[in-house]
């Protein structure tokens, strides 16, 4: 690296960032060694690789210039011999052979051609792209002439570069500017006046360190760091897409804040988010972290095809993983091999294979029913109550078993009786389906007051007994008010005769469910590839119990079917009987953590909203029981004699379960108590907060390369879980899952992870990364302005144990960071974008900082950390206007209006306009770099948004109350709260004029003052003259609009 440094210094980089230093070609002396990575590749990538690059489909003339093998073929490039190289001939040709072709509208300048010629003359040495080279173990720190300036090794890199340019660093910023800068950068908030005073008074050598250590220890540090990570993680409080339901993932946001405050090493920060669930003995916090992988948008638009969207979500995880963690744009490889970077379609789907094996569904109906997989987050109080209820359930279960033992004598006495009848107690509905009464009623023999009904489109035809109901497939028969809503604690048996015209691939037999085609919840019996499936569903498939018969139901014959459930909430409690026999069945899902909350009551047969119905099927003799029948009872329903025969035979083995299940009053009582105990336990469980997280299926889902990225066009060849071939190999001893992936990603020599991380942190402090394209370290990205500094920072970061606070500390205590940001005209001409770092950073406050700073200045910022999202002021009607599916936006009362912007409710399809105006991304996809625009809508927000007006009033009240006796003192006080420095005389003069002018205006129309002071929910302070306060509010608002308040300098 030492030798290379001089090379890098000779090259003034900046290709893709489009900024303005002299071009590499012009700057380098004619004899200097040409560097492939920094001089040649950017040219070739921009002008040649589209047709002669990595993509075989776009490749022309079967020539590729991105690899030495490709280029040296057939004399295209002859190392050392430009005159014999076809490439040189082509780029200098004046005829039709000219490259790039004229119609491509691309061209090479004279200097660029000369540079390529020299590179060929020097041997045409290729190198892998700089960012893909392993992170060096040691990065030597350069020596500099001015040894006093560097406060940290990182300064030496900056200074060496400046010295080579003949430049000097700028003098340090004033103490006020520095503490303002560092406080915003580390906490997102302005420094408190007392903190400024203390710092100005502290002449000790450790004064700066003391400030930094205090800020790093502040809980606001985590909030500030979380702010940027939420953009990266595409965090939002709603799902995005169409109806845009609420995500309820804010506990993850609080996890992020806590992780930064605890200084969780970055390597673990990533590992937990990618694979916390796979860690040995994973804790709840580690599992919670994996919500990161679930923050993709989700749809609940009717008619959506779940598999299409499930694939979208996997893709979104790949894109986020690539952009956020590896600084690579891999989206292109979804449809084809990447055109510029060595990233293939296989690499893309290979990465996706790590993220596709969770028990998820492509749509959701209503986010109250959380998309699986999920994690339950009970409060300590709930945990206590749950444990207590669980004990009661256990006791009730024991009691029931006990009854069966102690009442053996009762059983024997009963068995000895001569008058036993084959009774099936618990019948709550019996629908013979023999005649249609008025209003399409269907008689209920068991309970004449609760008849069923059918759509008149279904007809009565000759059946198994009398007549039967024949279904159209699009019309239902309903049997309401018989059995509640068949939720988790409710045992039931439903029996009937069924005849289908063909083997039913799909089709709903009966259900008690709510929802739409994007997701149903509740109880159902349906056909699944010809077999019968009975299920209780909260969210399919991850939160459900279901069993399915092994054999298909035969067509064109009457079959007796009974489905039963015992109220345990377990798949083992589900039974299907066919022809009176328990059917061989497979457990499909066995995890139901909450009630299904289906709502409504009773059963619906033959049809479900937008689902396949029972077209042409016949139904007869429907019976509904409020308990799980025993086997002999199911047999009795089928043949009308099995139980009677057993009673005659006195068949003890068969009749003991029957007795305790159906006859014994003590057992019935114990069972009822158990049901009630379960009901209470289940109710508490259902109230526990639930959050989407990652959890792999027991069997991995096979991944495929998808043609043009389409979900329904998998290529034949399956893809395993593989990492991109161009990067270091997957660790041999690591598991092929997300945990292994995290290990691969955080290996100490991984080229990208640490570079990308330190670059993003650098960007936080300097407004621009060392690589300007924070999102793209690939060949099309910008080259680093200080490559060795980047490597040193990255290596140091890894060696420090991925210590985030440590890195922040190094940066903010560096001499580079401490410089004044103001530029001399010469420096501005020379380096307008401050690429060389000859001055300190400056940038506009982010949307969040602007609002938080105004609230802080107005002394109304609520500093509570974490919790559900807050709803501050927003233009009325905003959500509803665009989206009738959304609830109206109701601003919070009290604290919620004045919490930090980090907590503002983020609706993806309609983000808060006052924040969107200041360049906050919509959070629909991963964004690692915000723009910084200025538009006319921004002043409108800062001057007119009630939030800012109210905050200005807060500041005005402070200034009148605590700012001192004279106007001058008060203005200085307010100015310092907004800008952290004292105003100059001239500034003071102008503010005085403004204040007096406003006071005169309000004095002339005091009713205006009254109106102005009523803006915002917080009432104006008592005891202040309204005219004075209004004038002071206008003045305070103006101060908060000043460059000095809006910028960090």
């Amino acid at each position, binding site marked *: 690296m030492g030798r290379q440094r001089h090379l890098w210094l000779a090259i003034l980089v900046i290709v893709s960032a489009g900024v303005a230093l002299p071009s590499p070609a012009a700057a380098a002396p004619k004899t200097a060694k040409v560097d492939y990575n920094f001089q040649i590749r950017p040219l070739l990538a921009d002008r040649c690789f589209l047709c002669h690059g990595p993509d075989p489909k776009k490749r022309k003339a079967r020539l590729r210039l991105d690899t030495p093998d490709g280029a040296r073929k057939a004399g295209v490039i002859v190392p050392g011999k430009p005159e014999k190289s076809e490439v040189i001939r082509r780029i200098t040709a004046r005829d039709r052979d000219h490259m790039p072709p004229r119609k491509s509208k691309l061209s090479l300048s004279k200097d660029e051609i000369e540079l390529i010629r020299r590179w060929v003359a020097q041997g045409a040495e290729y190198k892998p792209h700089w960012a893909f080279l392993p992170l060096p173990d040691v990065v030597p720190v350069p020596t500099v002439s001015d040894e006093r300036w560097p406060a940290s090794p990182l300064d030496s890199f900056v200074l060496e570069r400046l010295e080579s340019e003949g430049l000097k660093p700028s003098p340090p910023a004033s103490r006020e500017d520095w503490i303002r800068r560092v406080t915003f950068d580390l906490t997102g908030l302005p420094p408190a006046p007392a903190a400024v005073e203390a710092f100005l008074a502290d002449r000790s050598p450790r004064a700066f360190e003391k400030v930094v250590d205090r800020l790093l220890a502040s809980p606001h540090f985590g909030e500030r760091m979380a702010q940027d990570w939420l953009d990266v993680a595409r965090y939002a409080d709603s799902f995005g897409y169409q109806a845009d339901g609420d995500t309820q993932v804010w506990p993850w946001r609080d996890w992020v804040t806590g992780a930064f405050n605890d200084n969780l090493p970055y390597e673990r920060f990533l590992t937990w988010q990618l694979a916390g669930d796979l860690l040995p003995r994973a804790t709840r916090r580690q599992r919670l972290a994996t919500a990161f992988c679930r923050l993709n948008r989700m749809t609940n638009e009717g008619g959506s095809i779940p598999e299409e969207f499930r694939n979208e979500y996997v893709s979104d995880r790949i894109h986020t993983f690539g952009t956020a963690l590896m600084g690579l744009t891999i989206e292109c490889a979804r449809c084809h091999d990447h055109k510029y970077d060595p990233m293939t379609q296989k690499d893309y789907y290979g990465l996706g294979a790590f993220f596709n094996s969770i028990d998820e569904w492509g749509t959701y109906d209503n986010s109250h029913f959380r998309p699986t997989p999920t994690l339950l987050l009970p409060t300590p109080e709930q945990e206590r109550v749950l444990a207590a209820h669980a004990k009661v359930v256990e006791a009730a279960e024991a009691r029931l078993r006990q009854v069966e033992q102690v009442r053996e004598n009762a059983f024997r006495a009963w068995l000895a009786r001569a008058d036993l009848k084959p009774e099936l107690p618990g019948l709550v509905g019996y629908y013979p389906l023999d005649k249609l009464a008025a209003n399409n009623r269907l008689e209920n023999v068991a309970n004449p007051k609760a008849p069923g009904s059918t759509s008149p489109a279904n007809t009565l035809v000759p059946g198994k007994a009398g007549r039967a109901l024949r279904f159209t497939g699009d019309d239902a028969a309903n049997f309401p008010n018989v059995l509640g809503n068949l939720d988790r604690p409710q045992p039931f048996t439903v029996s009937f005769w069924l005849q289908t015209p063909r083997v039913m691939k799909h089709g709903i037999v009966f259900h008690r469910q709510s929802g739409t085609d994007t997701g149903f919840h509740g109880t159902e019996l349906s056909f699944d590839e010809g077999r019968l499936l009975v299920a209780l569903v909260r969210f399919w498939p991850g939160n459900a119990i279901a069993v399915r018969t092994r054999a298909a139901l035969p067509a064109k014959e009457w079959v007796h079917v009974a489905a039963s459930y015992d109220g345990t909430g377990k798949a083992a409690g589900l039974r299907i009987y066919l022809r009176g026999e328990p059917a061989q069945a497979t457990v499909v899902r066995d995890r139901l953590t909450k009630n299904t909350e289906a709502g409504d009551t009773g059963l619906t047969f033959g049809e479900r909203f937008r689902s396949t119905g029972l077209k042409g099927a016949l139904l007869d003799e429907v019976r509904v029981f409020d308990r799980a029948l025993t086997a002999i009872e199911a047999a009795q329903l089928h043949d009308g004699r099995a139980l009677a025969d057993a009673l005659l035979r006195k068949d003890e083995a068969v009749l003991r379960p029957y007795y305790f299940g159906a006859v014994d009053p003590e057992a019935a009582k114990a069972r009822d108590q158990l049901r009630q105990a379960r009901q209470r336990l289940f109710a508490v469980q259902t109230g526990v907060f639930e959050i989407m997280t990652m959890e792999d299926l027991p069997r991995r889902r096979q991944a495929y390369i998808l043609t043009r990225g389409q979900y329904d066009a998998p290529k034949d060849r399956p893809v395993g879980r593989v990492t991109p071939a161009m990067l270091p190999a997957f660790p041999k001893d690591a598991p092929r899952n997300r945990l292994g992936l995290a290990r691969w990603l955080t290996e100490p020599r991984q080229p990208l992870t640490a570079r990308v991380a330190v670059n993003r942190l650098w960007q936080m402090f300097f407004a621009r990364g060392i690589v300007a394209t924070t999102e793209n370290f690939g060949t099309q990205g910008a080259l680093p302005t200080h490559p060795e500094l980047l490597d040193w920072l990255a290596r140091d970061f890894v060696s420090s144990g991925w210590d985030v606070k440590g890195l922040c500390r190094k940066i903010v205590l560096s001499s580079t960071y401490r410089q004044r940001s103001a530029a001399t005209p010469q420096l501005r001409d020379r380096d307008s974008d401050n690429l060389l770092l000859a001055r300190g950073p400056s940038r506009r406050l982010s949307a969040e900082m602007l609002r938080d700073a105004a609230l802080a200045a107005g002394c109304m910022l609520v500093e509570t950390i974490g919790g559900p999202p807050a709803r501050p002021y927003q233009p009325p009607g905003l959500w509803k206007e665009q989206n*009738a599916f959304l609830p109206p936006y109701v601003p919070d009362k009290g604290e919620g209006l004045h919490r930090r912007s980090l907590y503002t409710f983020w609706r993806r399809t309609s983000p808060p306009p006052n924040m969107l105006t200041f360049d906050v991304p919509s959070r629909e996809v991963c964004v690692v770099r915000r723009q910084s625009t200025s538009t006319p809508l921004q*002043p409108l927000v800062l001057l007119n948004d009630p939030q800012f007006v109210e905050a200005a009033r807060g500041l005005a009240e402070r200034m009148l109350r605590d700012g001192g006796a004279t106007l001058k003192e008060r203005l200085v006080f307010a100015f310092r709260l907004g800008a952290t420095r004292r105003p100059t005389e001239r500034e003071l003069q102008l503010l005085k004029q403004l204040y007096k002018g406003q006071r005169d205006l309000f004095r002339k129309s005091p009713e205006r003052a009254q109106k*102005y002071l009523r803006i915002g929910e917080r009432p104006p302070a008592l005891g202040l003259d309204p005219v004075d306060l209004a004038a002071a509010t206008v003045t305070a608002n103006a101060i908060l609009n000043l460059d000095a308040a809006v910028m960090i300098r």
Partner: protein
Amino acid sequence: MNVKQPFDPLTITRRHFLSSASLGLGGLALGTLLPRESRAAAHAPGGILGAPHLPAKAKRVIYLFQSGGPAQQDLFDYKPLLNEKNGEQLPAHVRGGQRLTGMSVNQASIPLAGSVFKFDQHGRCGAWLTDLLPRTAEIADDLCFIKGMFTEAINHDPAITFFQTGSQVAGRPSMGSWVSYGLGSMNENLPAFVVLVTKGKGDQPLYARLWGNGFLDSKYQGVKFAAGKDPVFYLTNPEGISPAGRRAVLDTLNALNRVQYERELDPEITSRMAQYEMAYRMQTSVPEVTDFSREPKGVLNMYGPDVHRPGTFAANCLLARRLAERGVRFIQLYHQGWDQHGDLPRAIRVQARETDQPSAALVCDLKQRGMLDDTLVIWGGEFGRTSYSQGKLTKDDYGRDHHPRCFTVWLAGAGVKAGLTYGQTDAYGYNIADAHGQAINPDKSRFTPGAVHVHDLQATILHLLGIDHERLTFKFQGRQYRLTDVHGHVVRDVLA
């Protein structure tokens, strides 16, 4: 990208400014660019292209987006066969294995549904329209009907996002953003890209991303005008603040920021000062443009009685014309409510009543003012609807599901062939058909006469604005992005 950097202090950005400085304007920028001067310089418009690639036919666009997917079979696409075969099942060979949405794919029966509305031919051109659109029928000779539109998405969100941003994936710039990025603003008092949504319609939602700037600077974001007191968010001075009071604040801010500028020499300061002035001008210009009180009665009548109620489609159409007159480049209207899965005959009547007269009036109004020659008007939704009934088909009721395979859009104005009906569908109105009426399955990667893919329409719109759709690009994440992705053909057949 090798393009001229425009100089436009109205919408200047930091990066923007510095790039200008690096091109030799630095001295000027540093020395003289103070608010008064920047105000004057604001007359220089400019987008990234500097000058259009091609001679522009259209200076501006008014896009009347009909959100939800209007049923072409009940408005434009005359299919007597559907009425003949009303109630019969959609033949499998017509469906051709094409996927249906989850809303009707499980129906036991998918009966063909004829239209209950009466079709007739109109104008010299003989365009077919139903009696739902009497006013549109009157201007048929000014319109160009594209019968063979097709798209890729079958659900609203992806489909409308695709139409408005060229991608089903979120995060891409909208059409209006691309256009203002490319061509810049034509006025100094109003945004270049304005969005108007019919108030209180409900139905299928709209999303901020539809007029979002994606990865372009947020200055290219569409600015939504709402009906009511604050047409633009936060436009109005807070209660109690008089215009004089506000002016004094702005003057003080200017003076104070000038002090700060002398201290920092940062051009971003002057740039921000220019924004404060533009904001101030918008406070006057926006209420002016939304105030119809000086519109002649005859004009108001032309748009129909709804025009008096702010936020209606009629009022938005008139507002669109006023914005167009004042140099707004891209005016995007949205009218929700076309998603008729059921109860179509009743619901579509309401939709037609709300949109027919104002749409026609807008075209006439522009024509009267000579503005139709350089204004492109577009009318249409994100996809069409099925020829079979979703849900029950009865004598006078039916519904239609989403149908991306064919639908109708009309264009009018600048550079578009008036009185043309372009392309056709098969006898079932289910597939795009060739010249002989035979169903075809067009492929977006190559142009098929009569079949217009969404990217083709986008390419054509840009072409009319003088933009080569392949050359209006923005490099993001290492790739050159454009509105038409890697597809799109200019539909030359519809150009005048």
